[in-house]
């Protein structure tokens, strides 16, 4: 697949299964990578997961086209956690990015309507899913 070749230039495949590819992508490149993905015709973001592994926050985008699952893992440093929004290209990521932001304390740069989703608006304290 052309897209996979393109992504290999920007990141590294760390797992490959039937109908599934898992990439690690540096967080600075996520804007460019998402543009390649979008241009290739994958327009569905099924989920965005986040995991605090102690050293950094791993943001994992799960993109879907029919039975093909493209998973892009983006490690974001814990101290200056911010990442470019993908909602401009994938409007379906709107809520997922809000949840990621409040639960793991990642600032989403360029999100059209930042704010809380599940937590109360005046919530102060450590993001609940940070370890």
């Amino acid at each position, binding site marked *: 697949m052309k897209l996979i070749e393109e992504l290999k230039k920007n990141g590294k495949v760390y797992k490959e299964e039937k109908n599934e590819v898992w990439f690690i992508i540096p967080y600075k490149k996520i804007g460019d990578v998402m543009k390649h993905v979008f241009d290739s015709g994958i327009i569905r973001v099924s989920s965005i*997961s986040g*995991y605090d592994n102690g050293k950094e926050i791993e943001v994992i985008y799960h993109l879907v086209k029919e*039975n093909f699952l493209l998973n892009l893992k983006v490690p974001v440093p814990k101290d200056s956690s911010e990442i470019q929004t993908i909602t401009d290209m994938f409007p379906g990521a709107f809520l997922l990015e809000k949840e990621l932001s409040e639960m793991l304390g990642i600032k989403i740069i360029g999100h059209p309507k930042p704010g809380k989703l*599940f937590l109360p608006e005046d919530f102060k304290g*450590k993001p609940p*899913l940070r370890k």
Partner: protein
Amino acid sequence: MHDMMIPFGPAHPALPEPVHLKLFLEGEEVKDVDFSVGYNHKGIERTLEEMDFSKSIFMTGRICGICSSAHSTCFTQGIEKLLDVEIPQKAKIIRTIVFELERLTSHLLWLGMLGHEIGFDTLFMLCFREREYVLDSLELITGKRIVHDINIIGGVRRDIPPEMIKKVNKNLGILKDKVDYLQTLIKKDPLIKKRTVGIGNIDKDDVEKLCLVGPVARASGVPYDIRRTDKYLIYDDLNFKIVTQKDGDSFARAIVRVQEMFESIRLTRQALTLIKPGLIRNKPAMTFTEKEAISRVEAPRGELIYYIRSNTTNKPARVKIRTPTYANLMCLNKVLVGNNLADVPVSLASLDPCLCCTDRVTVVREGKEEIIKLEDLHGHH
């Protein structure tokens, strides 16, 4: 500026579940919508991190009362991927049967709610009466009417003996005639048509852009169904069609769900014929390593997706759940804007929102995070 803002919810006439909508009106027409969720936090994602894998399946089954087996099948399937274990064919068949019966209960419940929304309470009563045939069958198979808990790691909990097959088939036969009647009623009744045709439209482009799922997507002509794309369980061996409609309004969504009920009856009957004597469980060695897996199923409301990560302990390191209603919340703007205020409950109900599923994440009390123990959960229902 808009003329008026009407707060709709969290407790409101459309749903028994809490969601807060801010409806901005000009006259009677809805011009803009803002929504907030989170009234139903149960803290499940974090709770799962504190639980054994073997116990946590039962926890996921309790995320939602109507899509219980969708959640537990999806989670179990993910765990089996982490453990690299193949389940026996018979277990797959039994899971499929429970899954499809659950879809039937969910769609019947939804149709009843639609009837209730438009003031047609007879339809509500009819749907809930017919739903008993499915609940009886589920009780027969799993021992429970709701929250079936049929899945365990490596297979299922209970077998289906031959005499049970006969009883379930009989129930399905009666149910098919009843659903047939409901379909005629919906297609012919002028009241239902007046309240649903042309109300709450979503077009195909929006479905794809906003990543909508399930019957909402299919009613707008997008044949997105995980049963067909992923071919999980035994769906590849069964013959079924993906019901789609073109119009994308509340009526089309009703038709999609009613016709899906016929497909579910067909699927269950086919699956019942495939049952042969055999094992229902392969007991795997519960040794976990650092791994991650993604698991998808087609829940009654659409694509349900779990991201599961394990470490060397027997508890998950992270579980992220994206439920179908969560994805479909994105279309509230499209569905409600341009409608009359009086049509809001019907349009909202036509999406079949399930907020139990949507609100689950983490419990936060007095600004401090709190890890919930099982004992606490027993105390707080």
